[in-house]
């Protein structure tokens, strides 16, 4: 277990040393600054007396919050895949893995250590970005996002899910094939999510089913939809439609499926890596 932590630290340190963290942090701060400025001016307009009613004001604030988090979700997913897509396949291809595996550690410790290292990094990233958006909305607009913790938690699960899938791909395929696979799956889920949303809007069950099936292939979009559902305003909830949420809300069962999916992906990654000739 101690060696798992050594690998985790190595993974984290590599991201830091290769300036991945710096780039993500710098762009993250720029994103938050732009978001804050934008939100500040919209909010200033909202507060002008007689401009809009109290309910509408909070609706617009919620809309801006969701817009911010939508981007954070996308960026976090990118971070999860781009940082980890190369980690196993790249080390196998370059041969740096040889001196690691020849040490008295188990192969699962390498996979778990990498998962842990990237997991910590992505958690910090999501906290900075997602937490930043939620905080800014509160500090500037005085608006408390409903179920913010639950929403961010689901976004976190989404990031870990994609991380584990990317580790599984990396234990099996080349870096490029892995990247194509993970983004391809993400794309299917993304498209399926929108088909489901419109399907539910026009009450077409086939379209909804397509969405559900694509969520079974990889439940990443479903997790975002559920997160958005949790954090939406009561009015939108009553209307049942906005660009970010859908009338067809992923059920808690889908969250259970996503957790199961993430765990199985990691276990399979361990299995694949253990069997692999290096």
């Amino acid at each position, binding site marked *: 277990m101690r060696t798992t932590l*050594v690998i985790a630290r190595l993974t984290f340190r590599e991201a830091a040393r290769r300036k991945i963290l710096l780039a993500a942090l710098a762009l993250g701060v720029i994103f938050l600054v732009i978001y804050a400025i934008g939100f500040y001016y919209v909010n200033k307009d909202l507060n002008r007396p007689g401009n809009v009613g109290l309910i509408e004001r909070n609706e617009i604030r919620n809309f801006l919050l969701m817009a911010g988090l939508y981007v954070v979700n996308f960026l976090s997913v990118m971070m999860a895949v781009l940082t980890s897509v190369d980690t196993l396949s790249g080390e196998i291809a*370059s041969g*740096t893995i040889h*001196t*690691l*595996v020849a040490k008295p*550690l188990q192969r699962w410790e390498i996979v778990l250590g990498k998962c842990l290292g990237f997991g910590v990094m992505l958690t910090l990233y999501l906290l900075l970005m997602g937490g930043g958006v939620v905080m800014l909305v509160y500090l500037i607009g005085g608006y408390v996002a409903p179920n913010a913790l639950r929403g961010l938690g689901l976004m976190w699960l989404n990031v870990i899910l994609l991380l584990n899938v990317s580790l599984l791909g990396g234990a099996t395929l080349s870096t490029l094939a892995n990247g194509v696979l993970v983004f391809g799956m993400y794309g299917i889920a993304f498209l399926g999510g929108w088909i489901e949303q419109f399907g539910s809007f026009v009450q077409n069950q086939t379209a909804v089913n397509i969405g559900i099936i694509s969520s079974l292939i990889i439940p990443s979009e479903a997790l975002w939809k559920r997160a958005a559902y949790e954090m939406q305003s009561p009015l939108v909830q009553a209307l049942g439609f906005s660009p970010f949420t859908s009338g067809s809300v992923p059920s808690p069962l889908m969250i259970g499926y996503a957790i199961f999916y993430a765990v199985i992906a990691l276990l399979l990654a361990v299995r694949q890596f253990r069997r692999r000739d*290096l």
Partner: protein
Amino acid sequence: MHSMPLCIVQKDANSKMPAAIEISKLRKVFGDKVAVADLTLTVERGEVFGFLGPNGAGKTTAIKMLLGLISPTAGDGKILGVPLGEARGRQRVGFLPEHFRFHDWLTAEEFLRLHGELYQMSAERLKRRVPELLDLVGLEPHAGKRLRAFSKGMLQRIGLAQALLNEPELVLLDEPTSGLDPVGRRLVRDIIRDLRQGGTTVFLNSHLLSEVEITCDRVAFIKHGVVLRTSVLQDLVEGELTVEVRARGLTPGVVSGLSRWSLSVRADGEHLSLTLPGEADLPDINRYLVERGVDVYALSPKNISLEDLFIQIVGTDGGL
């Protein structure tokens, strides 16, 4: 972990300890390519063992199977008494891979610390060992430099340091001198000599035969993943030798008289070529020639080189 019997090294108990390497009928097939056909080998404790063969003979695959990097298709074996593939077997094993690709964003010192931590070495021990090893391989002035800036030879040195961090009982070196200049090669030779003196077993995978000739106790010749012959190096090089003689006044009678010592005699004017079973008869041969009025200008014995032997055993086709 520290209570494991493996960690208690007593040199006088070597005979009771399991062999450093013991493999039996090891086989590895990749798809339809047989990398290692049938490898049976025992390396005793304290030996410096040379593993020789042409490129593609399966040497690296064999080393990787020993370390659990590759799982054998068939056969089994033990290193330091632990079945292949088990992590605890690698606790007291050092390894320098052939292509020495390391995490090049680390500094030399960080790199050694990382690998020490993977050996689960304590902080104090690392504090002592890391500078010791940097000094040993002559990289102390570059301790804070990133590996990215290292030359091939420097990488090989830091790789070697990494393999010796844990004061291993068995060191596996895959072509350790292939990227080194003469100074680096001598360093590796000296390190191997020191390891032998300390009772460490060294398994040296090489095709640089002159290196092997100087450093190894025993060698195995392998081709197509089969051990063709295993020999004690001393026996090999101290065996048969050829003697080139340059002398004036040789008569057919004198020449034929040499056959009592020599396995074969070839005379060509002033040149004589003899094949002897050993060097013990050289003074007698010299005396014989001088007493018969022959002027001897040169009498040079030449051991059969490992290279000659390699080609004799492995063939000239390079294992293709």
